[in-house]
């Protein structure tokens, strides 16, 4: 029985192992969720941001139920360690994301950390925040081949419609 090889296989496991223990992993993610709700944009290692994203979005889904909901209030109480953020969550974030069906956060990778570990870093932010945008949406240039062909087609159609 090759027990050693079986110990290294982790097929189908979705949750990463962070921190010192499962409890420590939850505390770590809880701190990150609190920071995200407070500052609306944080820079952290990519693995932690990816892990935290799911929890943050589910918290906002709970908040959308309204603050009269007992489960929603208990969730917010557990996940936000700073209690003034519970007010912000229910009064600012829930109305902001009411029209959206899902995906309230944006996760983008940034260049590796400058320290010795060169860790893969990411910036995670709540959509619709008041801070300067990280990525400017770019339209394709008019000079690309496809756009030139489409422009020619549109002009031909106009000329055909004019005559």
């Amino acid at each position, binding site marked *: 029985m090759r027990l050693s090889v079986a110990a290294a296989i982790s097929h189908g496991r979705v949750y990463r192992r962070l921190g010192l223990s499962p409890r420590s992993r939850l505390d770590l993610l809880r701190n990150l969720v609190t920071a995200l709700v407070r500052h609306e944009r944080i820079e952290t290692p990519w693995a932690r941001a990816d892990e935290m994203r799911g929890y943050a979005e589910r918290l906002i889904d709970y908040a959308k139920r309204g603050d009269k909901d007992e489960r929603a209030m208990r969730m917010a109480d557990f996940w936000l360690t700073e209690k003034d953020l519970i007010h912000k969550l229910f009064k600012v974030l829930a109305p902001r994301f009411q029209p959206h069906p899902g995906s309230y956060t944006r996760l*983008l990778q940034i260049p590796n950390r400058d320290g010795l570990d060169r860790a893969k870093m990411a910036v995670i932010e709540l959509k619709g925040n008041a*801070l*300067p945008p990280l990525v400017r949406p770019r339209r394709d240039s008019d000079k690309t081949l496809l756009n030139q062909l489409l422009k020619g087609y549109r002009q031909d159609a106009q000329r055909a419609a004019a005559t």
Partner: protein
Amino acid sequence: VLILVRSPLPRLRALLQRCWGRLERGLWPGVVGGRSPPWGPALAVQGPALLPQAINDAGESSAEAPSLLESVLWMAAPKQRRTIEVNRCRRRHPSKLIEVKRNIDVCPECGNLKQKHVLCGYCYAKVKEETRLIRMEIHKKEGGPFNAPTVETVVLYEGEKPTEKDAGKRIIERARKRPSWFVQN
């Protein structure tokens, strides 16, 4: 040494003496009748010295593991020098070379190099600095810790007035001209 004396136990004594004689002859083959063995140059064979105890021990412990002196003979070592051709084949094998990155592009905003799936370092540093200054203003406005507002926030630069979309929001003022990359909604 044979003793020709008739004693009550002649056979046993004779047997013992014969055995002892054979033993001595086996241990020191050169010794005959008290003379020392002939000295002369001999081949220096690498190996454990044949100690007098070795024969006694041989019968006792045949299952003993080989001592360190014997096992030193049996360690793996290269037989031949690896030629430079063989060395080159190993050192330059594709699995050992560093992979060439083909996902490097030019950022359309600033012109610095960036990886395709990563944000541009220069542009991100610009945005990070501006967010830091905005957060300093927020901190000044809030006054202390744990004063998160229950309304949205909007950032206005010099000479800008809040529009009707920014009706109930908290206004953060920055004392500079609006940067070109921060478009007002």
